[in-house]
């Protein structure tokens, strides 16, 4: 699967609309406890079941053990296994979850390398309610098709 995501500037934003999903699951992969907590609570507010992982290897191991998630929020810079490596590995395993890169502001080249690893989208952290709404709308569309 190749990443075909959009940058935040080309989004069709859904603003001010709450999308509550009681049957979607998410994995937050970030080495920062602060960001893990922030995105964990944010996604739970939208009704998702959330797990967290502190680096790419923990995330990959979860999938190896048979876990599955509709959405993966993947930080780029992490110790042990970074987001680029983890994304490549997950796609090589055949993981079809929506994988969304979450980065601090980097140069366009760095974001492109992350996208090419197999992301669906890549956004600057932290994710805003509008972006999370957009992602959940996309997830729902994707699930309705299947």
């Amino acid at each position, binding site marked *: 699967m190749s990443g075909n995501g959009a940058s935040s500037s080309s989004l069709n934003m859904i603003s001010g609309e709450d999308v509550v999903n009681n049957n979607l699951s998410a994995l937050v992969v970030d080495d*920062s*406890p*602060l*960001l893990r*907590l*922030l995105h964990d*609570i*944010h996604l739970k*507010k939208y009704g998702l079941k959330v797990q967290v992982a502190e680096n790419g290897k923990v995330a990959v191991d979860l999938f190896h053990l048979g876990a599955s998630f509709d959405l993966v929020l993947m930080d780029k*810079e992490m110790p042990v296994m970074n987001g680029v490596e983890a994304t490549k590995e997950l796609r090589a395993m055949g993981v079809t979850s929506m994988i969304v890169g979450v980065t*601090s502001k980097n140069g366009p080249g760095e974001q492109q390398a992350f996208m090419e690893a197999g992301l669906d989208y890549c956004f600057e*952290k*932290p994710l*805003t*309610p509008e972006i999370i709404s957009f992602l959940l709308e996309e997830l729902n569309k994707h699930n309705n098709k299947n």
Partner: protein
Amino acid sequence: MELVQIQRRLVDYTKSLFMEGFLDAQFLQLQQLQDDSNPDFVFEVVSLFFEDSEKLLNELTIALDQPNVDFKKIDSHVHQLKGSSSSIGAQRVKNACIAFRNYCDVQNIEGCLTCLQQVKQECYLVKNKFETLFRLEQQIMASGGSVPTIELGF
């Protein structure tokens, strides 16, 4: 002090933090995530930030004191601090980190040292601001009141 007065004081104080650039809209997003199921969310996130920032600032101090300064390592630490400060809406800390990274890019040690002091100062200032904010919130809760919310566009 009456409850209404403390609530008014909190609102005015919070607004001043935005006006002075200490906080930006991201902080309001944090407050909106707090609810009855996570009543201490903002306090927890802000506390995590200050735990993180203390470690990172110590690492940066050590790294800049080395005979051969590893600018890649320094940039990585500052990058992390920028990310976490941005996540809690600590705007002045974030901006100080942006300036710091610019000096890392050109490997300017003196510039980095100045920026490190600036970041430390901004962390110290915003920590004091948060302590005051949380103290006012606690006073309101202790008086049986509810913490007023601030809308953007005030």
